């Protein structure tokens, strides 16, 4: 079994994986290049699509002292690159009961008092493979701006590279998810229509129509299916169907 792109004929370039040289096709991502080299990944490989945070990678190009970051599944190899994958980071995580909280900045600070140790060096932002302005959301956390942290950190994949670069030993990604959860739970208004609909369901409002559908023949169902009234693509939120018997 092969992933389709491995069949491409391509010029080989050297890469150094944890210091060891492999010659790999120039067009491959780091992840596929290592497979080409003979690895079957166990750690350091997850969704292979840039969203899970399993394959955060630190690398350096010869001639430069600068460390760069990327996701192994998304970053194309560069000739001579030295790299390592960081599949795990032992960051601190505080336990909390979201029901008992209020969604304030003080709660962030109480669970992660180390946020005040941030020295604003920006190594975290430079170390983020998702281009999140991590230092900015840490500043927001220090200011108690829970909604700000939630918004700035929304794309975080929790790979831990920020924390790995932090001289103040912050665990930015855990601060961020706490803020997102607090914000969504306590600061943003709950959906009233959900509450109402759950009550309707619990009250048995749809029991009979549903049971009736379940007892219908395929032919009858097909007719009902074809006759469904479609909410137009560009309809506004307040659109109402003509047939309101089952809503």
């Amino acid at each position, binding site marked *: *079994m092969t992933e389709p*792109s*491995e069949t*491409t004929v391509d010029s080989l370039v050297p890469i150094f994986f944890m210091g060891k040289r492999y010659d790999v096709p120039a*067009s*491959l*991502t780091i992840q596929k290049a290592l*497979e080409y*080299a003979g*690895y*079957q990944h166990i750690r350091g490989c*997850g*969704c*292979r*699509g*840039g*969203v*899970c945070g399993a394959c955060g990678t630190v690398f350096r190009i010869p001639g430069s002292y600068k460390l760069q970051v990327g996701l192994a599944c*998304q*970053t194309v190899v560069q000739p001579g690159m030295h790299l390592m994958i960081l599949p795990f980071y032992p960051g601190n995580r505080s*336990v*909390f009961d979201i029901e008992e909280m209020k969604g304030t900045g003080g709660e962030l600070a109480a669970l992660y008092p180390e946020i005040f140790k941030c020295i604003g060096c920006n190594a975290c932002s430079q170390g983020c493979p998702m281009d999140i302005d991590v230092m900015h959301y840490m500043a927001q956390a220090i200011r108690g701006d829970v909604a700000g942290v*939630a918004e700035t950190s929304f*794309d975080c*994949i929790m790979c831990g590279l920020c924390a790995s670069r932090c001289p103040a030993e912050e665990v930015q990604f855990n601060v961020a*998810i*706490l803020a*997102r*959860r*607090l914000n*969504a*739970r306590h600061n943003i*208004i*709950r*959906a*009233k*229509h*959900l*509450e*109402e*609909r*759950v009550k*309707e*369901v619990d009250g048995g409002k*749809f029991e009979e*129509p*549903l049971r009736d*559908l379940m007892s219908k023949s*395929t032919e009858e*169902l*097909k007719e009902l*299916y074809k006759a*469904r009234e479609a*909410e137009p*693509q*560009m309809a506004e*939120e307040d659109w109402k*169907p003509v047939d309101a018997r*089952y*809503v």
Partner: protein
Amino acid sequence: MPYPESLKKLIEKVVATRPARVERKKNGQEFPPLKLEEREPVLRNFHPDFIEGTRRSIKVGPSKGYAISNEIVDLLEAKSRVNPYLINLLDPDFETDVLIIGAGGAGTAAALLAAQNGAKVTIATKLRHGDANTMMAEGGIQAADKVGKDSPYYHYLDILGGGHFVNDPELVYTMVKNAPDALRWLEGMGTSFSKYEDGKMKTMHGGGTCRKRMHYAADITGAEIMKTIRDESRNHEDMINVIEFSPAVEIALDDQGRCAGAVLYNLETAEYHFVKAKAVIIATGGSGRLHIQNFMTTNHYGATADGIVMAYRAGVPVSFLHTVQYHPTGVVFPEQAEGILITEKFRGAGANVLNINGEQFVYEREPRDVEAACIIRECSPEGRGNGVPTPTGKFGVWLDSPMIDMLKGEGTVRKEFPGKHILFRRFGIDISTEPMLIHPTLHYQNGGLDINNKCETNVPGLYAAGEVAGGIHGENRLMGNSLLDVIVFGRIAGIQAAEYIREHGDSGTANLNHVKQYNEEVEAAEIDVDRIAPMILPDYSNPEVRKKQLTKDYFGTLL
């Protein structure tokens, strides 16, 4: 890689037709959807499920005679990875109330509910907690919660129409009815759904929906849900113990045929461990990494059908596995991103699907199987031959994302689709001004283990939830019903397993007799290969390297 000149030239044709298409869309003039009776011939001629020689009947086990994809049959007609005579079941390495196999959306939801109902939970998972297709689901989660314009009644009809009217009615009923409460549960845990200022959930259309009921968290809905429920489970480490990099390979039964635990394989020390449990929930997800018919896949690295294999050996029949879902829109260029999912939400937001001439050839919100078949027809030389050629000799069609900005205001693509915007930006493509080149890609296991509406299998104490189970989606799942499935049925499985152990207490003495018998059955069927299963991980390592892996016998954990 940015688009080469050859593709940039073809994009000009898309740009040329765009203003008129946007205008039509604004006026509510859609490309005509196929009628119900027109769907059938397109599917029969162009959907991969109908290609001859791609399925065969299973020769062994509880669903013997059922014809499904060769790649899955290969795993079912295989022996155990371990010698069942050597595993010591009398001295368990771990003991727990409920063992959950798989730590994706269904497994984690089940863990939270089982723990909440008083059961001690152990989750065993192949990779990390949250490494699962749930994490990769993008577009949204359905629930009929818009009072006054939608209801579970229409959700039910949409699901049946998408699934070709063969779905299990009880399972569909259970899902649509519990959908609003599932959303409320997620909201209450602090999942950041996209909302209006008054707290109302934003909802969109998906393929095959008659009402806008797709809730979302930008274009990373699954990741947002997975990160939230995983984080919550980490608040309950006293009740929920997670064992990572330890996939289960066999179920154990007791002398009365009840489920009694599972055998795990520690991927790093190569040990097999026995976990004794009073109930087991299989939540191992799907099978995209089997690359059925050599298709590229959107699936997670660990999606190898392990749960199907284990439970099947323990006597659980399978159904609806004769159809496989190909997502209409996977990346076909740039090559480095090949197979990656492009959420249906782009089409839900109005993006047209276009051929090499920049022309529409399909309504962009057909159910997935129909949409995929129409795209294959457009690309294939046996079809209409209007595909866009890629530099590596494949074909795709355009997904016209820039028109979303024209319909809904500049900046919408960047704001509503941050995940894909970043992905393409890495390759020098701006999807708010350039369309994406896409082709159908292996996406979802429509069928799986037989369960009832309590997630029970026919083996007492053995439950299944999520993509590993079959029946809910019939022969074709609609967008946004998979995230819903994992949450609704994950929660049910957790509650039911906790209740089961309250009633039945401890399981009896564990054995692997069914594995021994299954091995014998495979031999008796004269299946003439040395295959073992489950697969655990796909092997993409270089065949040239493998030729030199000449160790005569494995010693310890060294290959």
